[in-house]
């Protein structure tokens, strides 16, 4: 391995050739502040426009300062990361950024989690010497995301996410000079664009320029309305991340505390989306087997591979970008919507609550779910199956607002019947989990034999595109997995070009799957956090007594009492959906 | 045009075109062949070089003066656009500045036809690589 020797802050160091000054310093424990730069290790995600100029350092022999995030180390380089010249430059640059930024910290949703605010604190900014005009833009509200562009600092992280990682291409820099800003083309509204609401832009925005639509006040209002029965479902990935909002180590499972907190907040029933995930497996797994057996029988009309459909951003993505493939994804609704549908029929009937008086709230790691629950096909006479979807972050805010000491809460259980779930439902929260859950059930339904092992390690991991072949009692089932819409696109293109053949494919929009969702506590560019959440999810799965969806007793009961069998007429009506060409 | 296939071909063409231009100068009516080059770069066009050129073409034709009016690039005297270079057979080129219609008329009548210089000559102020 080639190395170079250089001196950083008077200390000599030998580092790998080709790395940046930033990384070299980091290795020595020297922190160089950065604002625009963001790198998610192992996910191949890096934003390095070299635009904010906060990371500048002094390199001997150079005329001007060098951005540490972009400058490669070189033999004999002498670097000062905190000289007077550097500190003055950093402070001045930050002052400039702040001089074009609304001083809204007191009322900004990002306050306390804002990288710009932190930076102002870190660099000891006490006065802005260069005041002047501030750029102003129209605020843009969509069903899921608010763009408060006045707070944009042009770090371009969202643009990189939307273009390079998601290949959706909605956000890009427009205008020049002082008016330059990141926006959909022609400053059109997000909801007129092909935005998928994946929320990855929100997940990485260092400031309050991109945030989710806050619906906590609606939830509070519903909770305080005595005429309403308010029930809540919580998605698998929430329990693996919520603790971070309360100072816990990433990867701490807080399932019990989560249930307790929701109950404390006053929800009448505290249910689990994992239950609906099990239900999804029943429907999707059955659909997959049907298609597969018809395919094997030589039916020409059958389309393979089957694609998962539980991620609403992915659904919107293919509706815009691959409408020709809209017959291929499973017609199964997402767990959130299955839950809402069952809650407002089966459960409402059971409890004799009128649909109008039942409010379904979901706690989601996801921003797109806000949009999904508003889709027309998920409403009955204008009344949505899911009334409000709030993010993990919003829930944390609500818990803090209600003065609940989360860390001291006892562990509680979910309510029945819609709170019982299996390990298969839990792993929906990570990339590879949906397909693993489906395999566990499909295998047994197909082979009529019990699985020899439950853990399919070949399906797990953080690789952007993964593939595996599972032996279905002699039949080699070819499985593909993609997370991140860019990877999904590449996988679909491989299929279209005939380069790859699969029977079933899982697609999740967010890097890492829902654990990396746009509504999760901010990772601030630390990919370790995602990995720890993933470990937690598999840990929860391992802890479950029942780990196969078709063995969930309440699922079995639901079919017996209400739905009949998977893919029945009723199931079709309540649990399946159709897709639209949005081009 | 046929393709030039070798360096020797190129040299031949060069000689041809050079002798052609020379020949043109020494043609049947040496005293009458006049070359007029109008500076037709953006700066010239903006100040009316197109009109000037058209005027020269029309006028010289009408008066049956055997002349060759061509365009050329910016001569550098942008302060004096439109500029026109006139080469009378056997004489050094002369550049005139601010050549509008009236001036063009004067150049044709006085310089081209009678060989008398007119006001507004621009002195050449540079060397070329051949000097």
């Amino acid at each position, binding site marked *: 391995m080639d190395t170079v020797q250089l001196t950083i802050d008077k200390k000599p160091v030998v580092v790998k050739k080709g790395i940046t000054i930033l990384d070299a310093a980091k290795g020595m424990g020297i922190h160089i502040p950065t604002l625009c730069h963001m790198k998610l290790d192992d996910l191949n995600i890096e934003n*390095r426009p*070299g*635009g904010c*100029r906060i990371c*500048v350092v002094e390199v001997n022999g150079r005329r*001007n*300062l060098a*951005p540490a995030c972009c400058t490669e180390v070189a033999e004999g380089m002498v670097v000062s990361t905190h000289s007077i010249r550097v500190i003055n430059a950093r402070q*001045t*640059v930050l002052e*400039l*950024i702040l001089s*074009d930024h609304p001083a809204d910290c007191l009322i900004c949703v990002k306050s306390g989690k804002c990288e710009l605010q932190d930076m102002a604190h870190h660099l000891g900014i006490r006065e802005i*010497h*260069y005041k*002047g005009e501030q750029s102003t833009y129209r605020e843009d509200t969509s069903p899921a995301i608010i763009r408060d562009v006045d707070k944009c600092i*042009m770090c371009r992280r969202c643009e990189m996410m939307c273009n390079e990682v998601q290949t959706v291409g909605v956000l890009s*820099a427009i205008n*020049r*000079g*002082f008016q*330059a800003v990141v926006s959909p083309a022609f400053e059109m509204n997000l909801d007129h664009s092909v935005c998928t609401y994946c929320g990855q832009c929100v997940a990485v925005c260092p400031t309050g320029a991109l945030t989710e639509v806050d619906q906590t006040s609606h939830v509070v209002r519903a909770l305080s309305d005595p005429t309403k029965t308010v029930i809540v479902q919580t998605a698998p990935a929430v329990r693996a991340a919520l603790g971070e909002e309360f100072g816990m180590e990433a990867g701490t499972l807080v399932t019990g505390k989560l249930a307790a907190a929701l109950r404390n907040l006053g929800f009448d029933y505290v249910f689990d989306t994992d239950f609906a995930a099990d239900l999804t497996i029943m429907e999707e797994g059955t659909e997959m087997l049907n298609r597969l057996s018809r395919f094997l029988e030589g039916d020409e009309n059958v389309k393979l591979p089957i694609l998962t459909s539980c991620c609403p951003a992915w659904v919107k993505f293919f509706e815009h970008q691959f409408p020709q493939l809209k017959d291929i994804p499973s017609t199964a609704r997402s767990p959130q919507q299955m839950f809402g549908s069952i809650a407002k029929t089966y459960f409402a009937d059971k409890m004799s609550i009128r649909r109008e008086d039942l409010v379904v709230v979901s706690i989601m790691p996801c921003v797109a779910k806000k949009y999904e629950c508003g889709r027309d096909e998920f409403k009955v006479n204008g009344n949505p199956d899911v009334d409000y979807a709030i993010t993990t972050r919003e829930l944390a805010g609500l818990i803090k607002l209600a003065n609940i000491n989360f860390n001291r809460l006892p562990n509680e259980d979910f309510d029945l019947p819609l709170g019982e779930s299996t390990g298969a439902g839990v792993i929906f929260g990570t990339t590879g989990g949906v397909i693993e859950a489906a395999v566990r059930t499909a295998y047994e339904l197909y082979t009529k034999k019990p699985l020899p092992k439950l853990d399919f390690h070949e399906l797990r991991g953080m690789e952007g595109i993964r593939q595996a072949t599972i032996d279905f009692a002699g039949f080699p089932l070819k499985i593909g997995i993609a997370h991140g819409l860019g990877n999904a696109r590449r996988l679909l293109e491989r299929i279209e070009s005939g380069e790859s053949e699969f029977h079933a494919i899982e697609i999740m929009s967010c890097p890492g799957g829902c654990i990396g969702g746009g509504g999760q506590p901010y990772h601030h560019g630390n990919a370790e956090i995602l990995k720890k959440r993933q470990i937690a999810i598999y840990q929860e799965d391992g802890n479950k007594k029942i780990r196969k969806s078709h063995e969930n007793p309440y699922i079995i009961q639901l079919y017996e009492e209400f739905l009949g069998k998977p893919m029945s007429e009723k199931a079709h009506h309540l649990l399946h959906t159709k897709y639209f060409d949005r081009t | 045009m046929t*393709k030039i*296939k*070798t*360096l020797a*071909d*190129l040299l031949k*063409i*060069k000689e041809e*075109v050079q002798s052609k231009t020379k020949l043109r100068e020494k043609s049947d009516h040496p005293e009458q062949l006049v070359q007029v*080059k109008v*500076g*037709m*770069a*953006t*700066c010239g*066009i903006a100040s009316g070089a197109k009109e000037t050129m058209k005027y020269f073409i029309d006028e010289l034709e009408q008066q049956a003066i055997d002349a060759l009016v*061509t*365009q*050329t*690039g*910016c*001569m*550098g*005297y942008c*302060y*004096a656009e439109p*500029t026109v270079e006139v080469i009378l057979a056997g004489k050094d080129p002369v550049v005139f500045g601010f050549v509008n219609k009236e001036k063009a008329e004067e150049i044709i009548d006085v310089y081209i*036809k*009678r060989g*008398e210089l007119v*006001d*507004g*000559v*621009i*002195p050449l*102020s*540079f060397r*070329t690589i051949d000097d």
Partner: protein
Amino acid sequence: MTDYKMNLLICGGTGCKAAESDELKRSFKHWIEEVGMEDEAQVVFTGCFGFCEKGPIVKVLPDNTFYVEVTPSDVEVIVKEHLVKGRPVSRLLYKDPVTKKQISESKSMDFYKKQLRIALRNCGFINPESIHEYIARDGYMALGKCLSEHTPEEVIKEIKDSGLRGRGGGGFPTGLKWEITRESVSDQKYVVCNADEGDPGAFMDRSILEGDPHSVIEAMAICGYCIGADKGLVYIRAEYPLAIERLKIALSHAREYGLLGEDILGTGFNFEIDIRLGAGAFVCGEETALIHSMEGLRGEPTFKPPFPSVSGYLGKPTNVNNVETFANIPVIINKGAGWFNQIGTEKSKGTKVFALAGKINNVGLIEVPMGTTLREVIYDIGGGIKDGKEFKSVQTGGPSGGCLTKEFLDTPIDYDNLIAAGSMMGSGGMIVMDEDDCMVAIARFYLEFTLEESCGKCSPCRIGNKRLHEILEKITNGNGEVVDIERLRLLSSVIKDTSLCGLGQTSPNPVLSTILNFEHEYLAHVTDKKCPSGQCKALLQYDIIEDLCTGCTLCFRNCPVGAITGERRQPHYIDQTLCIKCGVCYDKCKFNAIKLS
């Protein structure tokens, strides 16, 4: 047909005291008639010789005798001695300032040598739409020689030896750039010609493409041969329709003749050139931004390294050179590196084209050897300051450059000297300012430009330049404070120190150099609230001089905001709080009763 044997050319340009020239002409006519030579000698006015220091000037043709500082009283001897007897009047001849020898032939005068046209050699000489005329002037000979007689390494060595440096502003050694691009290993490489020319006031690249497009085509092909590329791209701004048209014609002629395309001159070398139109900002001239723009991306710079020579267009090694740089190449090949590197200074070889503009008599394109002084350019070639005003400053390098004072007039122009003086060569804009120009307003003007043309990618340039501009506006509006000058300095230095690309790294130069050289003007604005050159409207004050005011009410009736009061036949009065300084009253008053201060 009168066949004059002699011509007397009298400079009638605005530079020489026009009245005196008139007088001279009359005097000459008179004496010529007196000696009866009116049929033999003709007297004409010419444009400015650009040698106003020594004006008025009289040139006698055909012998090219050059008389300087001619007064009407000298006319008689010139006529009687020179015209009648054919003996030049030696006391009026130009004396070489170094050798002190009298020189009679204008072609051997230093002044005449001050301009040397290499890049512009064919501009204004050949018909740009005729490939024959180009070939007649050695066109494509250099390409032919390179392809058939030299290896790429030899050609690169020749370019290196010539000392040619990039004319696009940076001054990077061209041969070295070619060598680096040659050494980058890749299956595909590109030659890019940068014809974006965004510097306001610069138009040398346009003129070359309009006047001599083949020279650029030929040079690009030579470059392609050297670096191992078979594809060239010309990035030209869409606002240059004529240059585009001429380039297209030239390309098609070159193709028809097989001087572009496959197997050029039977050597097996292939080269094709495409045109890419840019509609971008000034920043699109920056090479990485230019490449992104050609790739269909937003025209904004990216961090270097990697340099285009290593990873450029579509990620392939790309050699980017400026139009003028290319235009020098064929000459270097034809005349040899040794010929070329004789011209210029130690570290800057050859010539540079400048677009002279501003308060100067001979605005236009000039090409001078490196090492020519600013004084020679401004006075000898440019013909001095318009209307006999006082020289104040010269701005070189466009929005990236600085404003230099009288003290720098004798600085030989080259890359390094200009930088040392606090300015830049830039692409060759040169704007001359006189006593009427306000340096604070000039700095503000350049900042305005930068503000429009910055891509906005990096914070110091996006916001910092805006703040600089705001402070300058504040000062020119009369609201400046002394600390503002210090703020300008501090902010400028941080912007230079931290910006991503050359635009931001140099955009504060006009501010810094004007503060450095004209701090008193800044101080006058902020402390006395006065604009010494009377350019900053907000700092003007119109007053009525009571003694001169007849009370005619004309000003009263014309003031658009009703700031003037007064009784008929009584002195009027201007309410300064209402006055918007439109100057109408000043223009209207017939009694010069309104003064401006």
